[in-house]
């Protein structure tokens, strides 16, 4: 997978860019605050049609403007994805090869990329929300139907919680069925993925230089059996009185966690900063391999200033793994050339200043 052309209008501090990208990718240099990260965020917007950093669409519109646009040509023009957003009507328009898509989920993952950033450590060190988001993004891109189920689960959950806040058990119960059927699929997909990839996560963490054994485990109320749907229905029924007291649904995939541990000790609480950083990189590599397997070719790699914070040994180890897993297009952003590994410098340089890009 590669991005061959990129058009940006009024996205964050990027006013107007029309860029051609070589197959190998580019090295993006520029001081902080000039627009490097925004450029990577714009590229990733074409993957998910949402901000990689979790920002709201209206926050992505350049100051003083009313709309933004990002368009990308992929694989040398084999297909084209466009996304536009207008603040006034809060309207988002996505099109594939010029045809508007009615459901955003139909266009999600047409362009595939993996983004490495220092803030990824937050996935390991932060609250469960970030780890659920990691799983959800990854599975939305890798598994057809996952995003649609996730969206159904979320809307059912919102309605059920509103009913619980109104103190109406009968109304809440009416939403058990859509919540359970969508939620069961979400739960199954997540547990299946974690089981399948936990050993690989351990192997990658070791390959990155970590001596203790790393594992991931999906933490849920009850691991799904053959009939996850009726199991979830039972779970909802048994928690109903508690849910009514609290005014929210207290059990379900929306409360689960992806537990990451080193030698049985949770990385979130007991990991050192270095161990958490290593685990975060391993998560991104596992993500890259999953996407590569589902799409049949490696995703685009976006590196936002990730090499500088690694010591020489870990940097070399990471480069080896990247060479294997992500041999395709790489967009490598850093403030200075000296912070980019030598082996990645064989790409054209772009300099970003004040939202403008010079080759």
């Amino acid at each position, binding site marked *: 997978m590669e991005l061959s052309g990129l058009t940006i209008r009024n996205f964050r501090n990027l006013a107007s860019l029309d860029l051609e990208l070589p197959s190998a990718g580019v090295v993006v240099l520029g001081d902080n605050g000039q627009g490097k990260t925004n450029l990577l965020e714009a590229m990733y917007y074409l993957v998910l049609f949402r901000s990689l950093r979790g920002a709201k669409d209206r926050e992505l519109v350049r100051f003083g403007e009313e709309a933004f646009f990002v368009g990308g040509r992929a694989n040398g023009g084999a297909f084209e994805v466009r996304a536009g957003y207008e603040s006034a009507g809060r309207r988002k328009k996505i099109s594939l090869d010029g045809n508007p898509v*009615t*459901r955003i*989920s*139909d266009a999600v993952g047409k362009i595939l990329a993996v983004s490495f950033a220092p803030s990824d450590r937050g996935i390991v060190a932060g609250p469960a929300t970030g780890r659920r988001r990691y799983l959800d993004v990854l599975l939305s891109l890798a598994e*057809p*139907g996952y995003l*649609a189920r996730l969206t*159904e689960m979320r*809307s*059912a959950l*919102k*309605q*059920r919680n*509103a*009913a619980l*806040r*109104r103190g*109406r058990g*009968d*109304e*809440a119960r*009416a*939403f058990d*069925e*859509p919540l359970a059927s969508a939620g069961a699929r979400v739960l199954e997909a997540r547990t299946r993925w974690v089981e399948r990839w936990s050993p690989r996560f351990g192997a990658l963490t070791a390959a990155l230089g970590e001596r203790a054994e790393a594992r991931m485990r999906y933490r849920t109320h009850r691991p799904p059996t053959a009939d996850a749907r009726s199991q979830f229905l039972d779970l909802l029924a048994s928690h109903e009185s508690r849910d009514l007291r609290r005014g929210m649904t207290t059990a379900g995939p929306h409360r689960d966690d992806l537990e990451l541990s080193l030698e049985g000790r949770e990385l979130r609480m007991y990991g050192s900063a270095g161990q958490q950083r290593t685990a975060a990189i391993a998560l991104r590599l596992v993500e890259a391999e999953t996407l590569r397997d589902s799409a049949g070719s490696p995703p685009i790699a976006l590196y936002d200033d990730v090499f500088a914070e690694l010591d020489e040994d870990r940097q070399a180890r990471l480069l080896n793994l990247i060479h294997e897993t992500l041999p395709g297009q790489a967009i490598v952003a850093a403030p200075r050339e000296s912070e980019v590994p030598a082996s990645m410098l064989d790409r054209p340089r772009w300099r970003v200043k004040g939202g403008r890009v010079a080759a």
Partner: protein
Amino acid sequence: MSVIAELATELAKLPGIGRKTATRLVYHLLKQPAASVERLALALQAVTRSVRACSTCGNLTEQDPCEFCADQRRDAGLVCVVEEASDIDAIERSGEYRGVYHVLGGHLSPLDGIGPDDLRIGSLLHRVGNGAGIREVIVATNPSMEGEVTATYVRGALDGHGVKVTRIALGLPVGGDLEYADGVTIARALSARRDMGG
């Protein structure tokens, strides 16, 4: 507030009409002959004065019972449950349905504060239970999550009333192209596939 602004404010409350369009409509009306604008005003008045909900089915009508409930040629044993009165128009356009209707007045949506008591579910149970000879209730709420939940709720409420409850089929549009159908619709169509015999 000037009368112009006042009218624009009222028009802007209509669905799909923003402040700009509302203002444009007002200026458009002001350019029309007075008689034509008065006809519009009279039509609006007539609608608000004479249209009300049918006491049997909830359809919006000038006569009570409405034209469908009063029509002797229709099969009163077959009731089609819809969310809004406007859905009746859509079903009538098919020319295929000869039963009567029941308008719920929306769907369950706790987020909007709409519960079962805010829908005409009680009056449906009353119709089914009062010996009017209803054999089958067709639930034709929208194929949205809320529409499905409402359908299931209606189904549950009708339990034990000795009436057959059916749900309209969901799937691919006729004359459509499989290639252009979205994934959710195709998944629904697959799970509701029918046996072709043989």
